[in-house]
């Protein structure tokens, strides 16, 4: 196996009764790659992501994440990944520092390192003065940036982001993506779902799921060329409009 591959899926399948939510998907994601995982509602994105995070058992097929098998080594997988979703990010009734300490603690980061890294993090996000404010009092964009920084606080090999920028203003959204680029640059693989088509173009590579299968997978530039489209929205529309099912 290639050492640079951190996510490997082969014929990964998940069935719920008669319904095949994820239908034999295969792909590989490399170290430091920013991999966009797109698809219509109900295409099977969430199910696929849950299997990779070790939260759901595949029906058949193989997959490994950070070198660990998704069937047997779910605990190791969880130690080596970070996760952030739009719905749940941080505890609103804890301060910024308390949130960081909590997450650092559950991932087993040493107290001394938590302290050091917290200072670096606060400086990077330019929120040193707000360190003791409750997270609930911060603007949405700040929360999302902070949530991302917390998700990679324990220096995971891979971070899974589920629609991280929903509803965030354009400027903060870009600051958020700069953080993603930086993480990629540090060698953290970023696996991201989004509904913003311009954001899809920020990714190194994109896969697009339709009806449980991967309908296309390539760089944004190649995909646009193949479908002679100006932007990813048109590519998405061309590929997904034929989708038969919805949740």
């Amino acid at each position, binding site marked *: 196996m290639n050492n640079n591959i951190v996510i490997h899926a082969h014929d990964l399948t998940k069935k719920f009764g008669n319904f095949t939510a994820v239908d034999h998907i295969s792909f590989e994601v490399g170290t430091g790659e920013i991999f966009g995982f797109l698809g219509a509602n109900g295409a099977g994105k969430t199910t696929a992501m849950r299997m990779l995070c070790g939260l759901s058992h595949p029906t058949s097929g193989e997959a490994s994440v950070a070198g660990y098998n998704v069937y047997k080594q779910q605990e190791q997988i969880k130690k080596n990944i970070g996760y952030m979703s739009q719905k749940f990010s941080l505890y609103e009734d804890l301060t910024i520092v308390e949130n960081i300490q909590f997450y650092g603690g559950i991932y087993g980061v040493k107290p001394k390192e938590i302290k050091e890294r917290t200072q670096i993090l606060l400086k990077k996000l330019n929120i040193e003065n707000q360190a003791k404010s409750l997270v609930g009092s911060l603007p*949405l964009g700040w929360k999302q940036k902070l949530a991302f920084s917390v998700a990679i606080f324990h220096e995971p090999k891979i971070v899974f982001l589920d629609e991280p920028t929903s509803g965030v*203003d*354009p400027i*903060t959204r870009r600051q958020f993506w700069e953080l993603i680029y930086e993480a990629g640059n540090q060698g953290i693989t970023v696996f991201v779902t989004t509904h*913003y088509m*311009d954001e899809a173009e920020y990714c190194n590579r994109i896969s697009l799921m339709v009806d449980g299968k991967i309908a296309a997978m390539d760089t944004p530039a190649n995909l646009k060329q193949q479908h002679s489209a100006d932007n990813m929205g048109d590519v*998405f*529309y061309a590929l997904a409009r034929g989708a038969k099912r*919805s949740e």
Partner: protein
Amino acid sequence: MNTIEVKDINKSYEKGKVTALKNVSFNVGKGELFGLIGPDGAGKTTIFRLLTTLLIPDSGEAKVLGYDIVKDYKQIRNLVGYMPGKFSLYADLTIEENLNFFATLFGTTIEENYHLIKDIYEQIAPFKKRRAGKLSGGMKQKLALCCALIHKPEVLFLDEPTTGIDPVSRVELWDMLQKLKTEGITILASTPYMDEAVRCDRVALIQEGEILNIDTPDNITGQFNKKLYAIKAGNMYALLKALKQYPETDNSYAFGEYAHVIVNGDVENLKSFLEKQGISGIEVRNTLPTIEDTFIAESYKP
């Protein structure tokens, strides 16, 4: 007479501690498709709740169809259709039951105004025995739209109808709104997706409770008076970093595959600067600003 008139509205929550709207004014003409474009927390939902008479402003006044939103709330409630941001139908009722309920609630029947919802309803009709909670985001929104339309309202208020649904459904939904416009229905819709602004007749860009700009999408992008370049390179992260270091950069940000840059002086100087920084595969071209570029420019505080 304008269908919607909003004048100097102020609104705050929690006894004045949280300001939601600051001196908001705008008008929407009859049969217009008007967009409120802005991120979460900008105040879009507050505007909808004020205009649908669910909230009372701290100061200022607003009229819908000539009726005052505070005094004449009963009349307004009879004449408008409203689709709140949150999923607002009954998850445990089927598509058909939901639609029937809302039709009866507004004192009409599905048959009476079927022509209005026909195009939308036909797409979800094959699933009409399915419970609304089991539908996909796009189908839910289509059903919600049917329910808001069934009594043939004169004004339609749609709070973020496309949020959280996939791009295909989004395109379809805007197509539907444009069709409804031809029936003479005035539509006020909001969205956090900047690229959807072009689907509206006129838009108001809104941020932190203040309106930044109101105009047609073309005029708004036309007001962008700086030269905008799109730059591409092998490593996006390195490119963005280098652009920020360049002293003549006015503003720079990622935009799809490219970085958008507003730069003082000759762009060739920037190019050589980037090369010196070790950036490879540089490609520079002129580009036309989008609504998003305008929004960034107007809300950018260096």
